[in-house]
């Protein structure tokens, strides 16, 4: 599914973001990426969508070597990967429905498919009755649900979540986690970078800890950090 072979990334300014990382994530897994800010979590995610290329090593996603993709192949890779962020990245002047439909329109999907998939995915995230509202009329948790709907509307095999609960209170965050669990239950691999200890500890999923560009811990049913 996702494999990293001896992957290193040194940015032009000399910062080492990843140093010789080997990693294997199977289809349908739910993985937490933890570690201090600047440890390399975001670099890792950006590598999977080929926003960042490794300085050395190989990155395999869905059986394809991302490093060797030609520029025109990159969009097709990204259609198999959904992404969500701490700041939601919604378009403020588009309705909930249009924000989700946008993801299908820009890959030139047929209108029939858009009219079928968008209401279905809004129903899944629990916003079927808010379709015609604008993002600023929604709460933070609801906005994150819209961004999740947009990320999964094209049925990706992987969902990358970079601090998706960073701006949300615990109850709202837990609601988002339940939604992610539901999506994971449908077979989508989920990789989530987070600093939220309570959530990680409660979910009991695989935890990969990165520090200074290296994997320092990889446990199934792990917790956020060793007890202090």
């Amino acid at each position, binding site marked *: 599914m996702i494999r990293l072979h001896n992957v290193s990334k040194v940015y032009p300014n000399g910062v080492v973001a990843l140093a010789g990382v080997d990693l294997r994530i199977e289809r349908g897994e739910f993985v937490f990426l933890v570690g201090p800010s600047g440890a390399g979590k975001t670099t890792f995610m950006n590598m999977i969508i080929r926003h960042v290329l490794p300085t050395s090593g190989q990155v395999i996603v869905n059986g394809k070597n991302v490093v060797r993709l030609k*520029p*025109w192949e990159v969009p*097709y890779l*990204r259609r198999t990967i959904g992404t969500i962020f701490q700041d939601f990245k919604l*378009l403020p002047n588009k309705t909930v429905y249009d924000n989700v439909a946008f993801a299908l329109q820009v*890959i*030139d999907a047929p209108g029939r498919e858009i009219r079928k998939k968008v209401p279905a995915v809004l129903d899944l995230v629990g916003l079927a009755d808010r379709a015609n509202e604008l993002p600023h009329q929604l709460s933070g948790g609801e906005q994150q649900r819209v961004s999740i709907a947009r990320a999964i509307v094209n049925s990706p095999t992987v969902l990358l979540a970079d601090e998706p609960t960073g701006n949300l209170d615990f109850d709202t965050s837990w609601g988002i986690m339940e939604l992610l669990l539901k999506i994971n239950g449908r077979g989508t691999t989920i990789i989530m970078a987070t600093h939220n200890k309570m959530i990680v500890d409660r979910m009991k999923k695989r935890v990969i800890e990165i520090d200074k560009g290296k994997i320092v811990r990889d446990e199934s049913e792990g917790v956020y950090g060793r007890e202090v």
Partner: protein
Amino acid sequence: MRFRTFCYFWSEALRNIRRNVNLISLGTIAASLFILGAFFLIILNLNHLTDNLTSRIEIRVFLKDGVTARDREALKTRIWALGGIKTIDFISKEEGLKRLKEQLGDDEGILTAMDFNPLPDAFSIKVAKPESVKALASRIARLPGVESVNYGHGLVERLFALVKAVWVITLALSVIFISAIIMIIGNTIRLTLIARRREVEIMKLVGATDWFIRWPFLLEGMLVGLTGAIVSAVALYFLYGFAVRRFMSALPFIPVVTGGVALRQLCIGLLAAGATMGAIASVVFLRKYLRA
């Protein structure tokens, strides 16, 4: 491409133009293209004038007294051998005198005052390439039996030099104006990119192709360039017609291009140039952005 996508590209392009294009940039583009067009019209007219004059240019070769008919034929062969010659006509001294009398008309009396014919035998030569007149004339002058050679007194050279100078100026101006137009259109593209960076970021994340992202910008650039070009072409078309009428009534003996096909071709060329510069500007300014 789906019809919906096609409509999306156009509506995005038009919305971005309404938001980011102002009259100052459109006016600058139109003015630059207008000046370029005007220079091409000047070149067109200078070429027309040169063609007109050079078609009448001939080399007159005066022969020494006492050159026999055989020497004359030999000379003619040697001139032919120099190449680049269209026609050679022999004008005997009697023929020359007759032509001179016709030219003088009522004043031919001054010739009858002389009891001999002062004119030499001559060849009248028309050349294939007017540029070669000077070189050819000096080579003919060195042939045996030739007294002297007369041609357009350097008028042609000076005209060619003028045309060349105007070309150089036009090309220099083209470089300046074309870069300016590309920068102006590129700047509106940049403004659009800033206003649309959220959309573009999401498009890239969800896997829109580079071309899908590029089309609205490409249309915007081409439409802006084309609009400027239409303004300049219309202005040029009518102002030139007006200028030609004034010029012909003031200086009727100088041939000018009165418009027609050449003017229309120039206007179409301006439109094509405007659209092309717009397309180049959008592709160039987007390139760096899309690579990320």
